[in-house]
């Protein structure tokens, strides 16, 4: 009954700052490039799923159709924080699995401009009028900074520090090594927002944002888009040999939310849902972490990448510090992680990220990654997490024929 699922077209725009383009330009560029890559037209797409966090309420999918082809197909505008792009892909895949489409287009896009590391929370707090309790905590004023921090750099810093509390051999230096690696990797990626190599000392000596995350250990804001054309195995058999040869199999597609844990009252738990998603994905694919030739995981902050080594079973339990110390996730290591440069240096236009990591892995599996190619890559895993929380994991395989 279950049909295979395939990526036959993939694209991403360069990530960066594009003030002269609008969010539709970015989405249209990625969509048209993915269609071209698939040797397909918009008329062949039977569903469209679009992920864009900031434009989620604004019919971006339909606005995109008006620029690339209004064919009347179902459009899903989805959002799931930093897992928004992965959710768009999953939604497109659902329509394939449900038998409602045999070819579909998923687009992730975001235009963030220079909104800054703290987002809207970076703006000044209004002066207090009379105190009146409001909201679910009966707070009489905004409590950010008064009752700890709930902003991203601090939340992920504390998530990393909790791992350090529980496991030996993890500290500021290990976290910094993650960023050193991703900056180094990005130098090989022409699509990355930044391509500058930094020494470990430079990473550790950069402006401290939220210890242990320095500015060079935090992903930037930026603009960009990515898209994939997906189809069923049955459909794939009808397509041209050139398309079939470059097709990449989606061996697992998983979305999870965070199950209850006691510490949710302090801050979201980014580990349990990732562990669950990874376990489900390995089971779906019939593969294990040792089969992975490369991994694109959600390094929104260096502290996050380190704990995901364990969450994704890339290292032994408790062994994430050792894993980075022995350079296992470097591109010439045993399990290359974020050879694109990762969110930290490739960039993180929110809605685009979960689609762009599929583009990255697919490009390696196709042997088309140029200077940054992981030679002979056959299997790769992508991972994103949106705080609050949503986790998307996909496992891709090179076509065996």
């Amino acid at each position, binding site marked *: 009954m279950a049909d295979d699922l395939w990526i036959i077209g993939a694209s991403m725009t360069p990530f960066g700052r594009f003030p002269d383009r609008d969010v539709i330009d970015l989405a249209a560029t990625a969509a048209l490039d993915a269609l071209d890559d698939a040797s397909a037209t918009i008329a062949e797409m039977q569903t469209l799923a679009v992920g864009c966090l900031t434009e989620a309420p604004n019919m971006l999918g339909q606005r995109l159709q008006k620029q690339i082809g209004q064919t009347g197909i179902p459009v899903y505008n989805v959002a799931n924080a930093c897992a928004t792009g992965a959710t768009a892909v999953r939604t497109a895949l659902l329509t394939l699995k449900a038998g409602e489409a045999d070819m579909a287009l998923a687009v992730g896009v975001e235009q963030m401009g220079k909104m800054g590391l703290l987002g809207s929370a970076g703006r*000044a707090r209004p002066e*207090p*009028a009379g105190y009146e309790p409001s909201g679910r905590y009966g707070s009489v*004023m905004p409590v950010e900074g008064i009752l700890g921090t709930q902003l991203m750099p*601090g939340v992920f810093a504390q998530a990393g*520090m909790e791992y350090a*509390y529980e496991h030996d051999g993890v500290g500021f230096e290990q976290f910094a090594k993650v960023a050193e690696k991703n900056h180094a990797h990005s130098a090989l990626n022409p699509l990355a927002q930044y391509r500058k190599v930094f020494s470990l000392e430079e990473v550790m000596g950069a402006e401290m944002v939220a210890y242990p995350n320095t500015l060079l250990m935090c992903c930037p804001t930026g603009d960009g888009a990515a898209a994939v054309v997906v189809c069923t195995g049955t459909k794939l058999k009808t397509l041209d040999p050139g398309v079939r040869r470059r097709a990449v199999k989606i061996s697992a597609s998983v979305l999870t939310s965070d199950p209850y844990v006691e510490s949710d009252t302090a801050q979201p738990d980014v580990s349990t849902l990732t562990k669950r998603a990874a376990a489900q994905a390995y089971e779906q694919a019939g593969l294990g972490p040792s089969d992975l030739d490369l991994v694109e995981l959600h390094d929104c902050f260096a502290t996050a990448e380190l704990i995901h080594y364990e969450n994704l079973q890339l290292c032994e339990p408790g062994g994430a510090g050792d894993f980075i110390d022995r350079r296992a996730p470097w591109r010439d290591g045993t399990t290359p992680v974020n050879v694109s440069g990762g969110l930290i240096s490739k960039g993180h236009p929110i809605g685009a990220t979960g689609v762009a990591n599929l583009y990255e892995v697919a490009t390696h599996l196709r042997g088309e990654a140029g200077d940054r190619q992981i030679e002979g890559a056959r299997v790769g895993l992508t991972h994103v997490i949106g705080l609050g929380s949503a986790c998307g994991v996909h496992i891709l395989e090179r076509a065996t024929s």
Partner: protein
Amino acid sequence: MTEAPRRVPVVDYLSLDGAGGPVLRANACTACGALFFDRRNACARCGAREFEHRPLGTTGTVRAFTIVKRAAPNVPVPYVSAVVALDGGGVVKANIRDVEPDPAQVTLGMRVALTTFTCGTDVEGTEAVAFGFAPAT
């Protein structure tokens, strides 16, 4: 009309008028015991819909911390934010007070005790009281 109170807790799960001094109070699920600090519709753990108020312990252990150096304009930096596991149950986020905001001075696993401080005064002169934690032995 009563006179406006002079001190109000910054959040309603901080109780200032307990017999033993300030204390955090949780909504505890009567079915499974899960603790929550916010107004509830049902239990995130088991789905039950009944809760009772429960005062929590005033000492605990720092499970994680960060030292925030870049913050919103009106927030003084640096400061130490931490995840504190309270003795007897309950996990809460707050600032660690009375400690240098220096990674050499804050340690994972350090023992802390609840403390309160004034975090603002409104136009009517009412003081908002927040909680934090200070090093304890």
